[in-house]
């Protein structure tokens, strides 16, 4: 690819064409050629066919809807939902509207997808690296993991996790517990909840400020290293900044928050916060399943790095861990990222399997709405719009990342 380098002596980069392209001679024609005519006719036929098909669908649908007394349009979104949602991240009551209930479902979909993507990437990279390990046993175990998980349906993994693994946990009275605040039983994981008091908002503010300071520091450190070769422990200082600043703030303000501990009352826990088994099962299933696919991408990425790179890094005397992190993985990304983009997109789509184990994601909430008022078309259109939008965001973000790791031709 031709790249125009910035030249300090000629501030305006200019590219002089080596030759001039003669303007194309175009004969004005009165009649279309046979080929053009046929193309235009075909296109008219196609367009006409589509329009006629849409018209037919519309007429049929109208007739069917009125015959079954189903309303149409998005007016129902404002009506009271009247359905409970077991696992809402935002405050929700059955008195809220259908639109808000659907929105809660969308938030849940995004929430479980985002956490799953992060965890699946971590496990996937680990398994992918293990797959090419020089340790035979580790490589074989990783291969077994990948080959087993890739060849059974995700839904089966979800049913197994939800119906066998998590169902085997003890009842609330016999909870497994660590300390006084953390309990694990078949109703979920219970842990203390933070209740903010006045002035609490300062702590996240301090965290963000610390994070910004850390990023600036890291950039300066990288600059310094490039110029002088001196390396600053910028990551450690940055971490100290990002964590220390909020800690300091909370100490200065006198701990403006209270911990609400989960307590066993009767047959169940009260207080605290809980992660429900439905969420856990969905998370475990999505993470384990997608990690197997990501591991394969990582493996093929690592294997695409030329052997010479490894030899050169070893000749420099780099330790093995550093070779992996600084030499092999960054180059493996070029092959790994495009394939992984697809896997992220399928993960988000696969999160719709939540409906099978009762986690209230967007499909599950939408399905309940269809069951209540029969307005299937509207809900399905909303599902599709949200999924297409999420996929668009993922592919934009990953394409941006991809552009950064690809080789830049000079």
């Amino acid at each position, binding site marked *: 690819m031709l790249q125009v380098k910035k030249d300090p002596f000629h501030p305006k980069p200019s590219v002089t064409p080596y030759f001039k392209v003669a303007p194309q001679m175009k004969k004005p024609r009165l009649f279309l050629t046979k080929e053009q005519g046929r193309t235009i006719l075909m296109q008219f036929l196609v367009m006409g066919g589509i329009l006629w098909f849409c018209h037919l669908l519309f007429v049929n*649908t109208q007739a069917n809807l009125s015959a079954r007394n189903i309303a149409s349009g998005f007016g129902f979104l404002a009506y009271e939902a009247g359905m409970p949602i077991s696992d809402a991240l935002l405050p929700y009551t059955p008195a809220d509207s259908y639109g808000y209930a659907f929105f809660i479902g969308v938030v849940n979909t995004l929430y479980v997808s985002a956490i799953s993507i992060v965890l699946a990437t971590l496990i996937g990279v680990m398994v992918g690296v293990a797959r090419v390990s020089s*340790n035979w046993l580790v490589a074989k175990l990783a291969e077994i993991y990948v080959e087993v998980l890739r060849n059974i349906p995700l839904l089966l993994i979800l049913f197994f996790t939800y119906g066998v693994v998590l169902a085997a946990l003890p009842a609330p009275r016999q909870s497994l517990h660590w300390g006084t605040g953390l309990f694990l039983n078949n109703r979920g994981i219970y842990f203390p909840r933070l209740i903010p008091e006045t002035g609490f908002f300062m702590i996240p503010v301090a965290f963000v400020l610390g994070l910004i300071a850390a990023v600036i520091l890291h950039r300066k450190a990288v600059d310094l290293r490039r110029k002088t070769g001196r390396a600053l422990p910028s990551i450690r200082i940055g971490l100290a900044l990002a964590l220390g600043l909020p800690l300091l703030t909370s100490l200065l303000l006198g701990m403006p928050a209270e911990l609400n501990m989960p307590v066993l009352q009767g047959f169940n826990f009260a207080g605290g916060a809980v992660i429900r088994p439905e969420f856990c099962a969905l998370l475990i299933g999505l993470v384990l399943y997608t990690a197997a696919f990501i591991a394969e991408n990582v493996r093929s990425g690592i294997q695409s790095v030329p052997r010479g790179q490894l030899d050169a890094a070893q000749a420099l005397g780099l330790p093995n861990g550093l070779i992996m992190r600084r030499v092999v993985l960054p180059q493996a990304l070029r092959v790994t990222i495009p394939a992984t983009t697809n896997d992220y997109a399928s993960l988000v789509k696969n999160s719709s399997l939540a409906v099978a184990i009762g986690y209230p994601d967007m499909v599950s909430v939408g399905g309940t709405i269809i069951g209540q008022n029969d307005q299937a078309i509207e809900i399905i259109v909303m599902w599709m719009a949200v999924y297409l939008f999420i996929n668009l965001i993922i592919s934009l973000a990953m394409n941006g990342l991809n552009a950064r790791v690809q080789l830049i031709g000079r």
Partner: protein
Amino acid sequence: MNPAAAQKINIFIPRPNEAPPLDTAGPIGWIRQNLFNGKGNSLLTILALLFLLKTVPALLSWALFKATWVSGAACDATREGACWAFVVEKFRILMVGIYPSPHLWRPAVSFGLLATVVILTLFRLVSARTLAFLWFSLPLPLFWIINGGMGLAHVDQSLWGGLMLSMGLAVVGILFSLPLGILLALGRRSRMASVKALSIGIIELIRGVPLITILFMASVMLPLFLPKGVNINNLLRVQIGVILFSSAYIAEVIRGGLQAIPPGQMEAAVSTGLTHWQATRLVVLPQALRHVIPSIIGRCVALFKDTSLVIIVGLLDFLGMIKASTQDPEWLGYEAEAYVFCALVYWIICFSISRYGRSIEKNNAW
């Protein structure tokens, strides 16, 4: 040269090579080089061995040594091993659902037909053209045998289920989505703007949404689109959804194959006097399809796994029957056995198909 000097000449006689040190060759050497090369790897090996020692014996004793294999009724409640008697008891329902028992030979014959075609394909016993003909004509006799009519007693589609249904949905899904996918892929590369836009729209819309929404659409929305008096049953609706879903993915696979064909092929074909359509059909497509056979086999695996989702719109396929049979009040508490068996069956089928695909890719066999 005098004799005294001649005696001084040393004649080099090569000695046989010494055996390599014990720790670099043979099994010990292999272990040293592959399991204990370096501190980190030794630690990993020991951890992995501990993990295996913890899990494998327990798993084997549960699944094999302490398992109950045959039992008329529910297994002993205090059992320690798996109760495979559950799978034995439910085997029929898992395979064919509640297909009426006097007609059980029909699923068996269908399976035999499918197996015959699979064997013909695996061992390449007939020409590729015959194979294609066999595969594409397969759904018709299968449907006739399972469904009945024309001399055979009719078996209602609400009675179909189990592994038979999963396989049927997947086989018919792939076979029908191939021509549709080819059309969509060609449409996407068409020079006609409206055809191209339509194809891109369909492909990206279907690929952008989960299969569940398409199944919901097929099961709930499709009846609203049809004119009055036209009724198609749930199974067919779901099958249509599966075909549409699969064809969008197949289209992308085939587009990859079409892009791999150098444009010179088309130009050369057209310059011999073939029309554009003939050149596509006789020159470009055959080469493109040959390129993408491994990817299409990959799609078969994915689709077979995906058919398990039909449980959500109320069809009882293999996974559906597994789930349903764990809820039998006389056989409660055998979820682990049921799901492990289900995983085993899915795994054997999917793993063999993907291995077959990989071998084709490696040997460039078609």
